[in-house]
């Protein structure tokens, strides 16, 4: 397995959220709400910009995976995602350490609107950035899956520091393992990535790997806003 960083670039128009995707994310179910038309117009505007989402991964063989200790050892270093994530990665023979960014545009544009007291628009653009980077990472994950399937391997879902009890501080070890890479994503002292609209994490790879639940379904953060939205959706659905 090649350990070189595999880079992907997507024209922003290919990974922008759809209006439906964004309205679901925002729980915006009223098409007459002014946010709806703003989203349509702004997405159209952004589609015309020369922007790219950039990301990729580096694949390493997994040395030792200790679920109980919550650690994952590689020849080049170690991660400590804690037992929950290590459990999901149990069948990993390799791991793809990834990062991806939607770039600086969304945060800068959001701030520009906020500075003009256009707080709703500022929030909507921030949400567009969040959805864009997730869409871009979905694409990378799909391509990784396709590549691995050709070799008889399967991939796990993706997991990130800060979620599922994986300490955010371990992001420093993750970035150390990824090493030099050609994207603009950098890690600050507080483990905050810049550009802010960036994601990083791990995807397990193995011949027996199974995809398990992902995101809110397995996260135990009781105070997360998204959990509150999910609870409401379930209540409404029920």
């Amino acid at each position: 397995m090649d350990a070189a960083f595999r880079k992907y670039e997507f024209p922003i128009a290919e990974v922008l959220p759809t209006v439906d995707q964004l309205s679901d994310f925002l729980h915006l179910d009223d098409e007459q709400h002014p946010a709806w038309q703003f989203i349509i117009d702004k997405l159209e505007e952004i589609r015309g910009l020369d922007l790219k989402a950039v990301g990729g991964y580096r694949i390493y063989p997994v040395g030792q995976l200790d679920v109980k200790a919550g650690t994952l050892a590689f020849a080049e270093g170690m991660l400590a995602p804690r037992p929950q994530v290590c459990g999901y990665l149990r069948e990993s023979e390799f791991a793809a350490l990834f990062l991806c960014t939607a770039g600086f545009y969304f945060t800068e544009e959001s701030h520009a609107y906020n500075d003009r007291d256009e707080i709703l628009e500022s929030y909507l653009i921030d949400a567009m950035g969040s959805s864009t980077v997730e869409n871009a990472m979905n694409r990378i994950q799909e391509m990784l899956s396709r590549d691995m399937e050709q070799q008889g391997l399967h991939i796990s879902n993706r997991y990130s520091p800060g979620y599922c009890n994986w300490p955010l501080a371990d992001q420093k070890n993750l970035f150390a393992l990824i090493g030099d890479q050609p994207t603009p994503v950098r890690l600050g002292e507080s483990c905050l990535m810049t550009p802010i609209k960036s994601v990083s994490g791990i995807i397990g790879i193995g011949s027996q790997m199974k995809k398990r639940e992902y995101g809110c379904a397995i996260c135990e953060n009781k105070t997360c806003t998204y959990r509150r939205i999910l609870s409401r959706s379930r209540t409404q659905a029920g």
Partner: protein
Amino acid sequence: MSEILEKLFECVEFGKINAASPYPPQLRGQDGASEYTQKALAEGFSPAEIMDTALIPAMTKVGQKFSENKIFVPQMLLSAKAMNAALVYIKPYFSSGEIRRKGTFIMGTVNGDLHDIGKNLVCMMVEGAGWDVIDLGVDVGPEKFVESVRQHPDAYVGLSALLTTTMPNMKTIIDAVRAVSPSTRFIVGGAPVSADFAASIGADAYADNPQQDVEALDRFLQERA
């Protein structure tokens, strides 16, 4: 409540900014928060009465609906826009002293952290609840909070953090401010923050949504009285 203030309340609650705003559909073609505020002033309602009877209660209701997941951020922000449209005509009375604000709230995202959406929502709701808000921005260290508290010794302070790695900076800030102003009271919030963590660092309240900030501030005010 008079009809005009009831209308103003409704405009803020549902985000009807002005007569030209097509939203919400049930108020289409009618005046909005901007026009009703001007009319209320013209008809002799005092700015304080407009604030206390219509604007603040409307934003309180919006905050409650948000905390109960009956509305979400876009709806809340549209209400804030309507509130701001009304405040254009009310704010001049803040500086003249004709409207007494409840107090001052200093707010910032702690050092090392650049997230501002949650902080902005809190600032907006607290201002809508009748407080002067000083927004120190993001990546704010202890020195800036200390300086702001020195300038506003009666202020309450809100701290926001979105990262587990920056949460500890809340304690550093609280300790630094209390070193010069022992009675300053703090509200903390942000995705990774919990009530237990808030208590462990000596914060006076934990808020998991903007309405809880407003409620904590009102509680502080009652306790001070």
